[in-house]
């Protein structure tokens, strides 16, 4: 199972209003220990006891609340999840989604008469991953951030295969952030002389977007820093072949400028 980033959220007290069977009474107990929502590489709700199965409508509800990270008005939730339905049908679909979450699924939810939100104490892997990426792009990442294990976290897409508008924007935002963070990680590791791990991070960026020249430039820089002119030249050749085949263009001057004439090794 993929490692998850847990963020601690303070418990909050919310007023209780029970109106009808779709409203859940506020539980005096916090959610089960270790309850978390995973959005990277696909949706998953789990606690310390293992995965909690929820129907598709429940997944979409919890994913939306996890991404917005705030209490949402029920009307906003219904309108976002069922944009093509009438208001009454959307509200009905929302009530159904909440009730079908089941006891365990509803532990992840905080609901009152007006608002819905993720229950306090429920972690979301994306939040920790974003914080990690931002630290890597900042001036002083933590020592624990500079790890080959981090490459796996930064290689995961947000909810792949989900095409709702509210997901696509967030997914693209995360994708750009993680690609930049992978390159930054490679640079930090390279500066620390950890060339193997640096190359791992740079290659992950190349794999995520093969046509992104900055990813290739980062990998080439790692090879050159380690003194591997041959590897660097081979990587340039791969980029050149790819760009010619896919786009009919040559590598940019930025990539070519990484090489001095003496560093260019002619392949046999």
């Amino acid at each position, binding site marked *: 199972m993929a490692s998850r980033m847990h963020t601690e959220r303070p418990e909050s007290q919310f007023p209780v209003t029970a109106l009808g069977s779709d409203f859940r009474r506020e539980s005096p107990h916090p959610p089960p220990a270790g309850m978390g929502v995973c959005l990277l590489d696909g949706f998953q709700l789990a606690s310390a006891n293992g995965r909690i199965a929820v129907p598709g409508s429940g997944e979409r509800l919890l994913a939306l609340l996890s991404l917005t990270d705030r209490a949402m008005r029920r009307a906003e939730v219904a309108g976002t999840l069922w944009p093509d339905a009438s208001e009454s049908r959307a509200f009905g679909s929302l009530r159904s989604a909440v009730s079908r979450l089941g006891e365990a699924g509803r532990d992840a939810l905080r609901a009152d008469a007006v608002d819905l939100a993720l229950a306090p104490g429920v972690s979301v892997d994306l939040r920790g991953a974003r914080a990690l990426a931002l630290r890597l792009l900042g001036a002083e990442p933590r020592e624990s951030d500079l790890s080959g294990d981090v490459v796996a976290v930064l290689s995961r897409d947000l909810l792949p*295969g989900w*095409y709702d508008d509210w997901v*696509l924007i967030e997914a*693209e935002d995360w994708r750009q952030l993680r690609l930049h963070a992978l390159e930054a990680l490679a640079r930090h590791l390279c500066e620390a002389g950890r060339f193997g791990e640096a190359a791992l991070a740079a290659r992950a960026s190349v794999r995520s977007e093969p*046509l*992104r*020249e900055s990813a290739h430039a980062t990998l080439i820089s790692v090879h050159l820093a380690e003194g591997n002119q041959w590897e660097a030249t081979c990587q340039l050749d791969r980029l050149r072949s790819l760009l010619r085949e*896919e*786009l*009919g*263009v*040559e*590598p*940019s*001057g*930025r*990539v070519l400028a990484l090489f001095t004439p003496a560093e260019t090794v002619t392949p046999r």
Partner: protein
Amino acid sequence: MPADRVGLLIIRAWVEAGSASPLRAQLRWTTDVGRGLENSITFVDVETVQSAVAEWLHEVLAAGESQGEGDAVTPQ
């Protein structure tokens, strides 16, 4: 009642500074979002992207029209 098919086309565009053709426009598309994004291609010029978008819209229209013919009620 059958659900209407929905096409989806996403264009991810960025600029490669220093390139002779700096535009990169990656298109991913489908004429039926229920099947996921089935196709992907990247272009470097605006006109080709415009042509590809127009072609996709025609495909969506054709797919919708053929679905409508299939749903037509046969008079008894």
